[in-house]
């Protein structure tokens, strides 16, 4: 049996999350095929063919895959699901959106957000905001899985998979993308960054967030993140949110500034290698997970930190 990994891409290149999903797939045992559905997506397909461990790339290129609608993607996967023991996607907002449809149409469970593969039918996944790890076994014929990207290394290059064209499935016509407002940033992407500077309500407003955290992020070549409170208050766009219901990150260094450390926030960052917390409240729960805690007013300590970094 083979494993089908659904690529996340922007037609021109693969999103890094796909590489983590390939690594998880490699632990399942079986030939790995990657499905690339898009519009004028030959470059993304070629990139997929170069990923180490990939045996075949299957490409469905049609205008109605441009928007990656859940309805159309799920229909395409279902039409091509025969022969696969596992169907895998990264647990990004994209994967979370369409893959449950695939599972339901196949009448199987979805195993969400796995962090480890114990056996081809047994997986570990976090529940209760990551406070509990459940080991679950699937009795279904096909295992439909989303992968927590931070739990698996990115697959490397070096593959030379065959590329095969797939017929597009019919356009459902049920959904139309009418707008897209993407956050523009020259910084590394949050989920792929080695260093993250993250700010919370303690920053007070969006101006402070910008004027204090951007120079620090610049010095460290870091991505910027935030707590829910900072996003809700409008300091930064929604896609900055780290946590149980935001992005899950695990950088080499996570610097939490003016963030109290609610369990929902910790759920998104506690697997970071080194955690630094800057908070004026010595009792803030964030200090319980921080490797290095600096008690102090962020309005003084953050500029001092920027200066100290030279």
């Amino acid at each position, binding site marked *: 049996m083979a494993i089908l990994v659904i690529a996340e891409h922007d037609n021109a290149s693969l999103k890094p999350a796909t590489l983590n999903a390939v690594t998880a797939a490699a632990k399942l045992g079986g030939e790995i095929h990657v499905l690339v559905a898009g519009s004028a997506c030959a470059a993304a397909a070629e990139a997929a063919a170069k990923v180490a461990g990939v045996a075949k790339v299957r490409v469905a290129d049609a205008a109605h895959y441009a928007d990656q609608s*859940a*309805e159309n993607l*799920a229909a395409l996967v279902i039409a091509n699901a025969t022969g696969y023991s596992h169907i895998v996607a990264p647990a*990004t*907002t994209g994967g*979370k*959106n*369409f*893959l*449950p*449809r695939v*599972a*339901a149409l196949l009448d*199987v*469970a979805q*195993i*969400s957000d796995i962090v480890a593969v114990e056996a081809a039918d*047994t997986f570990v996944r976090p*529940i*209760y*905001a990551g*406070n*509990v*790890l*459940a*080991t*679950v076994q699937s*009795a279904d014929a096909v295992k439909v899985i989303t992968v927590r990207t931070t739990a698996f290394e990115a697959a490397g290059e070096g593959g030379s998979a065959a590329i095969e064209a797939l017929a597009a499935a019919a356009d459902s016509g*049920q*959904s*139309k*993308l*009418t*707008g*897209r407002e*993407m*956050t523009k940033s020259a910084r590394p992407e949050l989920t792929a960054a080695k*260093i993250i500077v993250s700010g919370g309500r303690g920053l007070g407003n969006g101006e402070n967030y910008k004027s204090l955290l951007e120079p620090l992020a610049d010095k460290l070549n870091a991505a910027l993140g935030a707590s829910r409170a900072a996003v809700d208050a409008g300091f930064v*766009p*929604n*896609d900055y949110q780290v946590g*149980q219901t935001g*992005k899950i990150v695990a950088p080499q*260094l996570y610097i939490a500034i003016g963030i109290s450390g609610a*369990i*929902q926030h910790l759920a998104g960052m506690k697997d970071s*290698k*080194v*955690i*630094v917390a800057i908070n004026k409240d010595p009792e803030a729960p964030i200090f*319980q997970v921080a*490797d*290095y*805690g*600096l008690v102090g007013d962020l309005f003084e*300590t953050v500029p*001092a*930190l920027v200066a*100290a*970094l030279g």
Partner: protein
Amino acid sequence: MKILVPVKRVVDYNVKVRVKADGTGVDIANVKMSMNPFDEIAIEEAVRLKEAGVATEVLAVSAGVAGCQETLRTAMAIGADRGILIETDAELQPLAVAKLLKALCDKEQPQAVICGKQAIDDDANQTGQMLAALLGWPQATFASKVVLADGKATVTREVDGGLETLEIALPAVITTDLRLNEPRYATLPNIMKAKKKPLDTVTPDALGVDVAPRLKTLKVAEPAKRSAGVKVADVADLVAKLKNEAKVI
């Protein structure tokens, strides 16, 4: 138009759950239970649509033990018109819940289902999408803005790179994200009124749905604890430690 809102009874988000000593499950005896926060947002949205004259009826549905009646009463105190409890003591997984909801949708014929994007106990993030697939309806997940008009829904969605707006034909399934609205507090008079609203009970059998779990939980465990670190004296100390000890900068 009728809007159906599934509401799940979960361990309150403030409770830090403990794993049972034998690793067979999570100890939820005697902990505070509440409505899943995303479902509160879903109910609030549906009630606002009713107040705006867009919806005519808001139906809250919960699947699970008898205690879910409480969750349904909370939904009705926020403003849902009636509730249906799909009562069972069985463990319910998202596919089973989606099938139960599909059976109810076939009966009740809502024009929209608004549910939470994720239950904060199983963190599955599946049910709404599965329901949409089973019904053959379009979906708009992770909504931060919803407009229903002219037989369609215009939904702004929170996605990894920012925001996306979709136009989907009704009937449809919409799942809520945190910033869709801020749910109101139920007032005492509304809590009293909710007690008199109709609450029906059905069973999975009566709906003809097999809810047998597909996933078996072999064990649960607490993740390795991070060992508490140190407090640094000042910024210079921090920079030195990051450079020489942690070697991350």
